């Protein structure tokens, strides 16, 4: 009897550890493959072409290929910044409202609805931004370009709100009741308690949500491919169209001659995306750990 149990136990353990290792191996293989394909452009000459060419222009198929990544990195940053500027306040405010002020019944409505927003496929979000949001923004503000950083960033923001909301709300709900009671006992109002006590106590979770949202924003493809206009312009204006790293890979990979300089450059962009999300996640983990330690030390 107990022997059968031991066997079953070991078997299940083996299955789970294989599953775990498979995931790790896949990630490693993807990274190795991506990195390998960038090989031909990993030299000083190409790095100069990517980052230091003046004027910075992305025209990979012209007679003299121009391979500056500056306009595309700038486009990625613009979309990400607008998306986060919109989604962070909205997501955190919605989480604060849901966990601190909403009645239990209202909470049961708001939570699933916002989480449903996460289930909307990004191609649908992109289509909405392309057809409706762009026209609306253009008519409301008399913009020259229908497809611009604001339009793309807002659409991206819609996709980021549920990420920020869900994780922040979990963090806020996990703050012990005793914190709130102590605050009320000192005569603080509802709002003062939420803003000055509960929110700071949940700061690691809120920050974690921002980091995850940043990673999603940098990698998001379809929304920006559809709503961003895809013009690789070196401009910091939020009213100009933009082209992101991910959208460039999606638009050009299908056509490119395998093994060419252009092909390797697209893989370099992929490696860059990989590196950005890796660094941001690692940094995020580090900050969260520090915050937790400080919070527990103070408590």
């Amino acid at each position, binding site marked *: 009897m107990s022997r059968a149990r031991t066997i079953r136990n070991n078997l299940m353990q083996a299955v789970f550890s294989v599953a775990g290792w498979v995931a790790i191996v896949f990630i490693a293989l993807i990274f190795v493959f991506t990195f390998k394909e960038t090989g031909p452009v990993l030299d000083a000459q190409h790095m100069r072409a990517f980052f230091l060419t003046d004027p910075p*222009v992305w025209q990979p198929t012209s007679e003299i290929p*121009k391979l500056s990544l500056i306009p595309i990195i700038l486009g990625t940053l613009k979309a990400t910044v607008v998306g986060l500027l919109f989604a962070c306040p909205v997501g955190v405010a919605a989480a604060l409202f849901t966990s601190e002020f909403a009645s239990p019944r209202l909470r049961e409505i708001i939570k699933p609805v916002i989480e449903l927003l996460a289930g909307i496929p990004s191609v649908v979000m992109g289509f909405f931004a392309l057809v409706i949001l762009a026209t609306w923004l253009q008519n409301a503000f008399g913009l*020259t370009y229908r497809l611009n950083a604001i339009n793309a960033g807002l659409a991206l923001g819609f996709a980021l709100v549920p990420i920020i909301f869900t994780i922040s709300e979990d963090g806020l709900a996990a703050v012990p009741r005793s914190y709130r009671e102590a605050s009320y006992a000192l005569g603080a109002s509802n709002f003062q308690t939420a803003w000055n006590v509960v929110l700071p106590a949940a700061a690691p979770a809120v920050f974690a949500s921002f980091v995850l949202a940043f990673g999603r924003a940098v990698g998001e493809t379809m929304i920006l*491919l559809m709503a961003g206009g895809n*013009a690789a312009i070196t401009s910091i204006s939020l009213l100009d169209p933009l082209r992101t790293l991910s959208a460039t890979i999606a*638009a*050009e990979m299908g056509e490119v001659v395998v093994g060419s300089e252009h092909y390797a450059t697209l893989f370099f962009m992929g490696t860059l995306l990989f590196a950005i999300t890796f660094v941001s996640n690692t940094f995020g983990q580090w900050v969260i750990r520090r915050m937790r330690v400080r919070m527990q030390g103070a408590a």
Partner: protein
Amino acid sequence: MKQARIVSTLLLSVLLAACGGREQPATGERPRASRSNKPLSIKGSDTMVILGQRLAEEYMKKNPGLVAQVNGGGSGTGIAALINGTADLAQSSREMKDGEKEKVAQSRGAAVVELPVALDALGVFVHQSNSVQHLTIAQIKDIFQGKTTNWSQIGGAGAPIVLYGRENSSGTYDYFREHVLNKEDFATRVQTLQGTAAVINAIGADKNGIGYGGIAYAKEVRALAVQAEGGQPVAPSEATVADGTYPLSRKLFFYYAANAPERVTAFAQWSVTPEAQALVTKVGYFPLTTVQ
């Protein structure tokens, strides 16, 4: 959407054909059945997707049991697929380069056959409310290179020009760059969209927009008359494409290996018959007979 529906119909017909095939051995005709079950794979120019689909649909009706799959992706994508063997027939809105022809010969072991199947006029489109009626090739070049930036510089209202174009994988992009921009670069401000239909939609919604694409797609936008150097402005129409006076007309091609199986060559030869050319007109292109 339409493409997805056609693909799924095709998949269904593959399944049905496969079921039919299983019953074939009883009649002793299995070899024939399995041969006709191999789908005819057509790939290439986004401009030619509709044309290829109509032709394939009609051809399948006439040849039950034959399955043809038509995909877009761009002329270059189709040619690459012909080279690496994933497509039997490439549709291209530009002529194949010599290097590409050599690669086909190398990988397929036979020369490539070039078959013009239709004529297309490349339209320069603006919003219907735009007061500009015609432009010279030189003016169009300056616009798409970002040297002319306001409609008032070319006789229109005082509003900035918003540029729409195609991805660099597109044959239309190549044709336009070669014949209008003299192989020089587009302005970086050109917003690149996926397919001529997307360009047309964008211009339909943008008063200040200008873009280019196959004339068959022109709906709810206006195609400008184009003036070649030393000529008169000519609007694109069957007559002006036929007599060669419209400056931006081009041939649309089928490419396949000379040693391709019969299902490929038979389809290609059928596509230039009067029956098939009637379909070309229906889709909105111009039949070859108009030049000959």
